[in-house]
């Protein structure tokens, strides 16, 4: 920060005692320490995900084939767009948070209120979006998928009547394999009489492929979502304290800075979840 941290002091002066050699208050330092430990937890989760992805590389589900829904849009596959929207919401709420911190440095109570309120709204929109994403994943596709027996799933695109896909018209059951190709008539007939149909995903089975993928999805986005939920609640409580004028009395808005660090951290984690879960 400006101020103490930018003051020109020699190493000897800094470490001679009677002051923090880091020019930081106790509360902010402890928030940083908490964030390091939390960051390591998330790193552990994402490393485990990457480990299993490499280990089961041959059968690992392809995310674009799973998360292609968009609210109010039917019959069109829009991979990545919805999660891009969620990412954007979180980035913008991070920006409003840093603007609240900046307003706090000017002791601008109304400015802090405005930006902190918008941050709470952004967090709530993100949580709602995540709830929708979860319910879409749990519910699964319209027809479900055949368990191919080799760890992969065959998406059932159509069950009766004519169906057009990629410029070709098919009759009756159409099954799409992991590599995007349509199953041959012989394979389709075999699947129809022998294979099991799976609908949606949970912790034990997954319509889109390995159940382990669903486990990681629920654990990682769920753990992150819990952070967002607690972040929204904490931001809201601090907003009430700002309104009461508590920080005018103390003379600084450091509490907003501390919850701000936590909120930016949530955005930071999502940046990595977005890359390692949805993009790569």
């Amino acid at each position, binding site marked *: 920060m400006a101020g103490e941290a930018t003051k020109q002091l020699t190493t000897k002066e800094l470490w001679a005692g009677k002051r923090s050699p*880091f*020019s930081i208050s106790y509360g902010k330092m402890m928030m940083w320490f908490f964030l*390091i430990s939390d960051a390591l937890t998330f790193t552990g989760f994402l490393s485990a995900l990457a480990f299993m*992805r490499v280990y089961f590389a041959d059968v690992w589900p392809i995310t*674009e084939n799973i998360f292609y829904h968009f609210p109010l849009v039917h019959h069109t596959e829009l991979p990545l*767009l919805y999660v891009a929207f969620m990412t954007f919401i979180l980035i913008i709420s991070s920006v409003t948070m840093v603007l609240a911190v900046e307003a706090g440095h000017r002791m601008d109570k109304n400015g802090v209120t405005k930006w902190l309120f918008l941050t709470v709204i952004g967090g709530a929109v993100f949580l709602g979006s995540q709830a929708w994403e979860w319910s879409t994943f749990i519910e699964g596709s319209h027809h479900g998928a055949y368990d191919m027996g080799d760890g992969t799933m065959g998406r059932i695109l159509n069950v009766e009547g004519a169906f057009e896909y990629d410029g070709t018209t098919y009759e009756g059951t159409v099954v799409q394999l992991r590599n995007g190709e349509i199953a041959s008539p012989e394979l389709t007939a075999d699947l129809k009489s022998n294979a099991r149909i799976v609908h949606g995903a949970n912790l034990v089975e997954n319509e889109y492929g390995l159940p382990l993928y669903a486990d990681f999805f629920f654990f990682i986005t769920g753990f992150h979502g819990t952070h967002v939920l607690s972040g929204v609640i904490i931001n809201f409580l601090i907003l009430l304290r700002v309104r009461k004028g508590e920080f005018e009395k103390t003379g600084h808005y450091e509490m907003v*800075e501390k919850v701000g660090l936590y909120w930016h951290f949530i955005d930071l984690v999502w940046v990595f979840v977005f890359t390692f879960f949805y993009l790569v």
Partner: protein
Amino acid sequence: MKRDDIIEYSLYNHHNEEEGVKKRKEIWKVTIILSVITIIEVTMGILLGKVGFLEDQATWDLIKIAYIGLTIVKAGYIILSFMHLGEERKPLRWLILAPYMFFAMYLLFFLLVESNADVKI
């Protein structure tokens, strides 16, 4: 008894309106950079879907490295600018980043070495 030898660091963090204008300009600049990187990532994700590279592992690896590079740039802007770590004293920066990087590299080591092991359960 109130101690008078403790420095209240938070009180030194204040700035006036003029500096505020400069800080806000910086915030909006970082916002634009983060948004542009996200747009690039999403465009790449839509145009270069993984399905098209199931057989071409080498190209896919390059795309993966590009994603990870962009993500690290984004993370850098969030940590250094939004969390203000870039403006803190150097010892504090190391105090926070060094332990994290040490343990993260430990995890990364096992990830890269063991996940490719020939022995499968």
